[in-house]
């Protein structure tokens, strides 16, 4: 029964994702942002990282740069790119048209997200290998935590993109509506600045930001410094954000332009 249900759903997702990938390939601006920014940005924070006292926190330049790069991949390959994609499809009435067909609402949103999420996943893998080899980040002590962090971050980014799209009217304004999460995450979620070097009280607030747990898991998987209790907290936070985002999308997502 489940195979019978899943086979057509898989076929539909594949068809939609393929079209979406073609569109991504034809949108040069989006492609450059998605592919280059996550690789280039970490180098811009490198000088600052070099000056930090990382040893005391058990960190190295490699692990800090790695989490920064994966975080930027979440933000630029997945989150901002998807906000634009969702808004563009809605404004061109593509989402409305898709809803007249056999695809379910969840399938439409996930099929559209699939290429961007795949780019983010591939990028994270390349970055992990690259940082391990080139920046002496070493090998992860608890790789499953890194994997968990990457996957939960990607899923949450897609859900948050759909949520941001609900309050975005045009593709142009997506560059503004996506900014708050980008800024807050860069500063507070341990991407540009490791949360470990923040004052304790501020750090504990920042731990509750949407992308903080994913970054924490990625970094913790590498350093092996997360206690079971901390892992549990990070997982609970990321699950809570995902559930909240999915609920909000189901409740408020707009399938057609405002008239």
């Amino acid at each position, binding site marked *: 029964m489940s195979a019978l249900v899943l086979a057509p759903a898989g*076929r539909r997702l594949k*068809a939609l994702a393929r*079209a979406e990938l073609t569109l991504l390939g034809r949108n040069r601006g989006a492609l450059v942002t998605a592919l280059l920014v996550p690789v280039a940005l970490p180098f811009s924070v490198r000088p600052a990282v070099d000056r930090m006292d990382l040893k005391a926190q058990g960190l190295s330049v490699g692990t800090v740069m790695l989490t920064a790069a994966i975080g930027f991949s979440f933000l630029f390959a997945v989150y901002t790119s998807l906000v634009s994609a969702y808004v563009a499809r809605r404004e061109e*009435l593509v989402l*409305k048209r898709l809803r*007249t067909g*056999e695809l379910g609402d969840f399938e439409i949103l996930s099929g559209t997200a699939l290429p961007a999420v795949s780019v983010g996943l591939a990028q994270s893998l390349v970055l992990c290998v690259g940082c391990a080899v080139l920046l002496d980040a070493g090998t992860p002590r608890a790789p499953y935590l890194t994997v968990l962090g990457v996957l939960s971050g990607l899923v949450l980014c897609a859900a948050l993109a759909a949520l941001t799209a609900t309050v975005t009217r045009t593709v142009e304004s997506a560059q503004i509506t996506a900014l708050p999460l980008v800024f807050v995450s860069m500063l507070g979620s341990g991407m540009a600045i490791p949360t470990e070097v923040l004052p304790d009280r501020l750090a504990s607030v920042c731990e509750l930001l949407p992308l903080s747990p994913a970054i924490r898991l990625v970094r913790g998987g590498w350093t092996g410094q997360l206690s079971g209790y901390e892992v549990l907290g990070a997982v609970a936070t990321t699950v809570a954000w995902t559930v909240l985002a999915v609920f909000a999308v189901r409740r408020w997502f707009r399938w057609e332009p405002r008239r």
Partner: protein
Amino acid sequence: MDTNEHEHVIEVTDLRRVYGGGFEAVRGITFSVGRGEIFALLGTNGAGKTSTVELLEGLARPAGGRVRVLGHDPYEERGAVRPRTGVMLQEGGFPSELTVAETARMWAGCTSGARPEEEALALVGLTGRAGVRVKQLSGGERRRLDLALALLARPEVLFLDEPTTGLDAEGRRDTWELVRALSDAGTTVLLTTHYLEEAEDLADRLAILHEGRIAVTGTPGEVTARRPSRISFRLPAGYFLGDLPPLAELGVCGHEVDGSLVRLRTRELQRAATGLLVWAERARVELHGLDVRSASLEEAFLGIAREREVAA
């Protein structure tokens, strides 16, 4: 459920739709469409055509009343209805950067039991444009692409929201022929249009919507039969309406005079025209600009809009 399904593929009962701002676009309409029938919803802009069709397509939940398509609620039971319906929205809905072939491939991948994409494109005459991006298509070509995708699933029920808007005369004829052929093969078609000749030519039955309500419904013949026919002419100088035979005797049910121009309305066109012409012959009066015409759908349509305005 099954026997019912064969009688009425689409059943609409006291349907209502209210938008966020409180605007009531559909105010309690009832109709049904049988298998293989072509049913047209006519109306001016803002009459509620698209608002109604979107409810039948299951894109929105009605504020009141009931919709059944193939025996199911198209909003609540999406999975049961969608594989058997084809939809053409009023406006596109395709990514402008994909080609025609890529768009068709994507849609076919999302459709169970889809016919080959090439076949669907051939049906609407778009084979030669398969490699062209959607943004480079003309308005008419986009309508035809939309129709091709609606036909991919070999639907039992087809919803066409203004299928020929933007098409040239030839394209319109081609679309009509295609729709007729589909209907002959058993497809049930619900279409909206503001081209009256389209409804007159194509529809087995129609309903004229006005301000969210059905003003009149029936076959095109029935709808026009309820309207009076018209005779208009100019009387030469020195002649007045009173010089004509008594209007009641001619079977005239209404008249207007505008200077020398006389307009008569009658439900007995032959009797009125004969009486008028016999009188003119005997009195040696030449009726300038004589125009005699039976009621058309256009007359019915404009008449309804006028009557409602007066009533309001």
